């Protein structure tokens, strides 16, 4: 029996070592660093003070929250309908659609930004097409906030569909029949019964999407390097910039960003628990 227990310990130790070395220690070191003066050496909360009082970093947070909120909202509204349409397709079609959705969810970061440059860049396919047809795109620019939002929406959509799709199975066909027998139209059914049942799931998915967008770095970086004033871009510049590197300030920004993500994820967990309670 003793030998068996040693074996159990042997199985868990390497895993624990990896977690300590490559997750816990770096995170603790980052939190510690965020309370240090530039270059280290003394304890201070000046880095946080600077983040909170400097309009530049405040704006970065504002921009990040805005683009994350907007792209999550567009993504989730489109996905609520699209995921429902997927549940209504025959099984073999549905499975294929989910595979395609999953595949496009891998299409993110640098390749995705590039695909959008091909499509909507200054000499992009779609841009040229509009020029040829005499359609005025107005002041649309891929390298603008609108352009970046389009890319964010792209990587939010597959994730939103994959996360929302299962929650439709919480709505039973009999409820619809019962509501219909009692004289409710389809719209009334969805407004009064469907939506309230789905709402916690939708809100939970929204918070995951929000966290996903808040931490996204590669798409904006691929488009313009560090021109977009977003929190992840600022962190990257502060930590790995050669001339303006201020790792302690970068750590403070990273800790604040991490706290935003934790809040979003906790909200999701709370809502998921609520759904389970409603279903049981």
């Amino acid at each position, binding site marked *: 029996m003793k030998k068996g227990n040693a074996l159990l310990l042997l199985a868990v130790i390497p895993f624990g070592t990896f977690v300590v070395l490559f*997750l816990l220690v770096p995170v603790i070191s980052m939190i510690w660093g965020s309370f240090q003066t530039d270059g280290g050496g003394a304890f201070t909360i000046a880095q946080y003070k600077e983040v909170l009082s400097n309009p530049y970093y405040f704006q970065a947070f504002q921009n990040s929250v805005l683009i994350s909120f907007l792209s999550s909202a567009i993504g989730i509204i489109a*996905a609520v309908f699209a995921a*429902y349409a997927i549940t209504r397709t025959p099984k073999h079609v549905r499975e294929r659609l989910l595979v395609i959705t999953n595949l496009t969810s*891998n299409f993110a970061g*640098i390749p995705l930004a590039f695909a959008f440059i*091909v499509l909507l860049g200054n000499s992009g396919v779609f841009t040229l097409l509009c020029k040829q047809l005499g359609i005025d795109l107005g002041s649309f620019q891929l390298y603008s906030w609108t352009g970046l939002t389009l890319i964010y929406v792209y990587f939010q959509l597959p994730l939103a569909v994959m996360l929302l799709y299962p929650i439709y199975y919480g709505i039973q066909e009999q409820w619809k029949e019962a509501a219909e027998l009692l004289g409710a139209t389809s719209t009334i059914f969805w407004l009064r019964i469907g939506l309230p049942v789905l709402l916690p799931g939708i809100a939970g998915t929204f918070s995951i999407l929000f966290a996903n967008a808040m931490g996204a*770095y590669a798409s904006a970086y691929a488009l313009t390097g560090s021109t977009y004033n977003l929190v992840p871009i600022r962190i990257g510049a502060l*930590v790995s910039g050669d001339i303006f590197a201020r790792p302690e300030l970068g750590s403070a920004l990273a800790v604040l960003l991490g706290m935003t*993500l934790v809040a979003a994820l906790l909200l999701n*967990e709370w809502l998921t628990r609520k759904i389970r309670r409603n279903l049981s």
Partner: protein
Amino acid sequence: MRRMNPSHISFVLVLTYLFLPVAATLIYSLATEWNKTVLPEGLTLKWFAELFRDFPFLQALGRSFLLSGLTTVAALIVMVPAIFVIVVYAPRLERWVQTLVMMTYAVPGVIMAVGLLRTYSGTGIPMILVTAGAYVVGLLPFIYQGTRNSLRTIHAASLMEAAELLGASRGRAFVKIIVPNIMPGILVAGLLSFSILFGEFVLVNMLVGGRFETLQIYLYAKLSKSGHIASAITVTYFLFMAIISGLAVKFSRGNKATRKEAAS
């Protein structure tokens, strides 16, 4: 009969939106010249031919395969036994694993890079190893999910009891009975992990950068140079992803089939 309602319209719009950038990149990678006209002036495979004769590209491709492949294998070797032990013998620890899973979500690449740079830069440990280590931990959510679900479907605890009653040691029972039975699930989790790492840019770019040029870093460097070559790289990358998810679907189908057999 088939009225277009909001869900159909939205469904078509979403699919079109997801499809358009992929299609545009594919056509661009095959186009001879496509600067002024609506449709490309001609089709050619020369960009792909040029790309696959480009030694730095092949090297970058090789590095990506090596880094993603070895890291995935290491993650599976480290995590599957640990998750097995925790799920079967110490279910109380599962809460901690779930907390760790949430932590990995709360610490995306750009935050992780800050901590890793602070901890390991200047220690003499090669940053590529640090990147690989962080990758291993980052795969926890996917490997945990896959392994735990497989263990549940095969009723791992009862299988272990039966094996031990028949005189097998725990280690032997794990290797001879549990591993073969959860193999399809592990393969699917492994393929998923591989494709995630294959597309990773943030960590490897911030920690290692040009010193270990992966496919993603190579693509980033080519973005501003040649649109056609960058398209060909993107299409190649997308094809690899398609093949991998095709394999994953195949394995998970096989998994379902065995489950059905077990149920009947």
